Each structure stands twice: as structure tokens, then as C-alpha cells.
């Protein structure tokens, strides 16, 4: 069992916030206290092509404050010291990850106690740019499957992926639009027939009701924009609001099955 696989022994709540946006250490603590089973820490990028307005703005707020890659690893390192059992994955775009070379990035992830990496714009076809370096360090490259990933393509997505499979439930960017429940159920069933990896569903999940419905059929539920919007609204005072939403979501997810 790894920290990551451990998180999916029951339906898991996966929570995303952007590093360097607000008081990130306090925000992460609030997510854990609220009941998050896994943390996705967003690495800010100037050009977040796959994100909607909420996460774009979080990236801009963070970079405007001067967040560096070194700051992000410091946040991760300190989190690991405070929460030895909660899995942490980094999510972001290729360029900041490979800027100093993929070996450097994998080394930093290992030192900081990062469990996995989700790179939005490295599809399996370009795995060589980062994947082998992460796997050599025992860090899981977490891949995305989408409504456009058909049965013929799925094996290629699964090959070399680890941790969990992230099902992006809408063809679109992060944010408000939301997929129909029956299409999610069908997609998760199809994915689970092809892999032993846990399947977490994200994009457009905002409320405990939605999270509960998804947790009935999937191994995990990812919530991002709704949390990031709380950081936008409350700034340095976000932890209380984050704790409240996270605990409502966690309760819904954990009692779904």
C-alpha cells in the first residue's frame, strides 16, 4: 500500500487549491481537518490553457505575489512534515515542471514527499518528457481520461500511469459546467473494466449532493474551482470557509456507499 492507494480504500474526497494563493499552508490544513483524503496542489502557470476563470485567476493571484517553484516545494515539504499520512499530488503544466530538467523535478518531488504528479499537457505520446523520471523515483504519474478518450485509446492512457485515473467528466475546462450523472456512471464503469487503478471524477463538481452521487459510482471525487473561489472571496481568511465546505463534501462522499 502506498499513501495514494491507501486513500482509496473508501470513497475519497480529493481537494484542489492553487499553491501561493492565500495562506496556502493554512488552507491545506483546513482541507485535511475538513476531511479531505487527498490533496492536489496546483502549480501556478502564466498560461493555464485547460482552466476556467476561477483557477486562471488563482494562478494570476499567486504569480502576482511572486510565487516561485522553490516556494511550491517548500509548501509541499512543510505539508508532508505536518501531515505524514495525507497523500499530496502536484497538478500543473509541463513547462514549469521541466524547466530545470525532468530529473531535477523528480528529485524535488521525492525530497518534498510528493506522491504523484498530474501534468495536464503531457499526454502519453509525450511521456518521455517526464514520466520515466517520476516512475524511477516511485512517484506516480497520474493520467487523465476524458469523454473523448475512446476504447481504442484507453490502453495507451493507462500504460505507465499510476496512483489513480483522473476522469475529466466534461469535454471542457475546469469550472462550472457539469456532466450528466448517467454519462459519468457509464464512463466510470467502462474505465474500471480496463484498470485496477482507482478512478476519481472531477471537473464541475461543486456541491455535497453532486459529490455524493458521484461517490456512489466512483472511487474518488475531485473538487477544485469551488474551493478556489472561496480563497478568492475570503483571501487570507479562507481556511474557515474551506473547512466548512470540505467537511460537508467529505460527509457526503464518505457516507455515499
Amino acid at each position, binding site marked *: 500500500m502506498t499513501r495514494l492507494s491507501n486513500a482509496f480504500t473508501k470513497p475519497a474526497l480529493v481537494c484542489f487549491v492553487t499553491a501561493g494563493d492565500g495562506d496556502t499552508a493554512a488552507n491545506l490544513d483546513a482541507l485535511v481537518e475538513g476531511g479531505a483524503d487527498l490533496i492536489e496542489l496546483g502549480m501556478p*502557470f*502564466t*498560461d*493555464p*490553457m*485547460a482552466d*476556467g*476563470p476561477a483557477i*486562471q485567476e488563482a494562478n*494570476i493571484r499567486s*504569480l502576482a505575489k511572486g510565487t*516561485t*517553484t522553490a516556494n511550491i516545494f517548500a509548501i509541499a515539504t512543510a505539508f508532508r512534515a505536518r501531515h505524514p499520512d495525507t497523500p499530496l499530488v502536484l497538478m500543473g*503544466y*509541463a*513547462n*514549469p*515542471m*521541466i*524547466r530545470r530538467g525532468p530529473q531535477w523535478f523528480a528529485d524535488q518531488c521525492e525530497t518534498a514527499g510528493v506522491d504523484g504528479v498530474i501534468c*495536464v*499537457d*503531457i*499526454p502519453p*505520446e*509525450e511521456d518521455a*518528457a517526464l514520466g520515466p523520471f517520476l516512475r524511477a523515483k516511485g512517484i506516480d504519474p497520474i*493520467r*487523465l*481520461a*476524458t*469523454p*473523448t*478518450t*475512446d476504447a481504442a*485509446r484507453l490502453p495507451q*492512457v493507462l500504460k505507465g500511469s499510476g496512483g489513480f485515473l483522473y476522469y*475529466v467528466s466534461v*469535454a*471542457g*475546462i475546469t469550472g462550472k*459546467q457539469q456532466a450528466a450523472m448517467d454519462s459519468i456512471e457509464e464512463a466510470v464503469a467502462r474505465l474500471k473494466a480496463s484498470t485496477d487503478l482507482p478512478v476519481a471524477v472531477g471537473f464541475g463538481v461543486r456541491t455535497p449532493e453532486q459529490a455524493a452521487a458521484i461517490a456512489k459510482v466512483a472511487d474518488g471525487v475531485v473538487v477544485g474551482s469551488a474551493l478556489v473561489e472561496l480563497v478568492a472571496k475570503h483571501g487570507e481568511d479562507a481556511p474557515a470557509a474551506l473547512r466548512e465546505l470540505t467537511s460537508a463534501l467529505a460527509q457526503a462522499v464518505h457516507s455515499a456507499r
Partner: protein
Amino acid sequence: MTEMANSFRNQPDDQGHFGDYGGRYVAETLMPLVLDLEREYRAAQADPAFKAQFDDLLEHYVGRPSPMYFAERLTESLRADAQKGSGAQVWFKRDELNHTGAHKINNCIGQILLAIRMGKTRIIAETGAGQHGVATATVCARFGLPCVIYMGATDVARQQPNVFRMKLLGAEVIPVTSGSATLKDAMNEGLRDWVANVHDTFYIIGTAAGPHPYPEMVRDFQSIIGIEARAQMLSRVGRLPDLLVACIGGGSNALGLFHPFLDDPEVKMLGVEAAGHGLDKAHAASLTGGAPGVLHGNKTYLLQDEDGQITEGHSISAGLDYPGIGPEHAWLKENGRVEYTSVTDDEALEGFQLLCRTEGIIPALEPSHAIAAVAKVAKTMPGDAIILANLCGRGDKDIFTVAEALGVEI
């Protein structure tokens, strides 16, 4: 490497890589689409009917072949400063005479035919200066397809005439306010639209960049420039030129001219990036002043900081103001087949005025960079040498920018 020694014209490989560069760095949602696009492009390449329709539209709608012109007075004026017997002949490939006023239309014709072939019913594009936006809006009007153009809010403000042109042509122009509100952000917004509308939308990328197969496909559609020029040189002068010169934003007009000559070792090539206020200040010279990285679907040279955050370019020419460059140029730089240089805003303004006065041609600010580079290099070459530069756009769109830079009120 033996293969490379045989030809510089056989790139990319089957994964879309030009050496280390290029590739398909896109979100999974888009991956099946770019694979599909590649399949359709291969089928179109093998279909004589596709080529026939492309050629027919280029001839009767765009106005090809474009002339190749000996710039006699420019040549003489550059020789005035050169040592006796020096000063190359300067020739221009006149792609500024194309319908819509730039080379951009060549690519748009190719891509819209592909879109129609794939059954797509909605077209999107990004634009900086507005030239690619106008060319895209034009082909959409011609084929009756709805058209959405993403344009940075900053560019909307500084390129009003082109915004109005696009609207006249029936396009919807969406100002992009995210990020730095310029071309790179317009491209981000185009990609966001595309992931959300994968079933019916075709993204017409305006330069030889983006995920495979775009860099190859755009290069191929633009190669008509070099194919014509090569034949025109052989029939008019009886030999190939000694030097090709072209400006580079993303690199499509340059590759269009260069690619058909890449395997002619006697032909040297010079790509000209925008040095803006100077290479030690704000500029848009990704190859000269950037470093390799990943953006907008490809690995290439980028303007970026030490953490891989993309930095803002600057050029007086909106069409060159992009922090990246097509991946084939990154490869051609590393293997040394093409030489790259850069030209500042001020030098480009001088090149602009030089061509106006010596030849009665008002060039766009983009090829004014090529003209400035020609002015520097021509005098160092012998009098019987031939330079062929790509005059890839006309300057009507730029008169307000130039007037402002020269301190003239109009």
C-alpha cells in the same frame, strides 16, 4: 543522423518531432482530435481533388502566383553605401499582393478545405495583429461557416481597422482579457474553446506552431511561396538565389519560403526575429533570447523566466509579438541550416520607410524587419549575388502605428 544529412525536408517524424522539438503537448481531451486531424490531413494529401481545389482557390481567389520582383532602386540605394563591386541584388516575393494583404490566406484556404472535409461546422482562430483573423474571417465568409476570432484586448485596441474588417466579414471577435491580453492569451482562449466544442469545431492556427500536425501542415500550405519562387528564379535568372530572408513571428512565412530550398546547399537562409527595444530590453526574439520549453502544444524556444513562467514579448509589429516560435525553426537553428538574427523596432521603421521611398511599396511592419536585415547584409555581398526576401504583407494596417512612432498626427 544519416537520414538528416540526406535531407532537411523530411521532418517531422511520425510523432511530430523535429529533433527534440515539436510534438503534441496537449490535454487528453484534445489528443483524439489532433490524431484525427493528422489522419484527415494525410488522406487529403493523398487526394488529387483536394490539391486541385486548393490550387484553384489560390489562383482565382487569392491571386497566385504572386510576382517575384527585382527591387532595382532599393538595390542601387544600398550599393551607394557599399564598396565598389559589392551590394547584392535584392528581389522580393510579393505575397503582400495576395487577397487580404498577407501570406496568411494561403494557410487559411488549406485549413478551411480540411475543416469542410472533416464535416466541421464552426471555425475558431486566434489573432495578434489581426491579419490571420482577417484571413480566417475571409475564408469563413467565402464558405459560409460561422467564425469566432479570439484577440487579446490590448491588440483589439491597437488594431481597430482589422477588428472592423473581421466584423464586416461576419466574424465574431472576442476580446481576451485573461493573462496579459495579447496573442498568447488569445491562443489559450482558442484552445479552451476547442476543448469545450470538440464535436463541431475546427481550430485554424495561424502560424507554423501548435501541436502536431499543425506545424507541418501550415508549413506545407505556405510552401507555395517557396515553390513558386524557386521556379520563378530559375526561369528569370537561370539560377537559385544566394540568400533567402524572411521575418519570423511564429515562422510560417519564413518556412513557406525556405522549405522548398532547404536541400539546395548553395542557398543560405536568414530568419529575422523582432528585437523590439533591444535584446537586453523588451523583445520578441524567442530563438535569440529564449530557451527551450513547452507551450501551446509544442516544445520549442520560448521567452520565459527561470521557473518556466512565460514572459511578455514586445515588438512594434503585433504580428511578431509572440513569446514562442514554430518548432521547425528551433530544429533548423540547432542543426545550423538556417541562420537567425534580430532587428529592433527602430531598424524596422527605417526599413519600412526605405522601401516606401525607393520602390513605392508600403510594407507591413513584419517584413520591414526582413528589409532592415537585407539592408545590413546586402552591402557585404558581391554585386552579382542575389538576395530574395519575403514581402509577406502590406502596410495599410500599420500606418497608424508608424505615424505614432514617427510622431505624426493623422
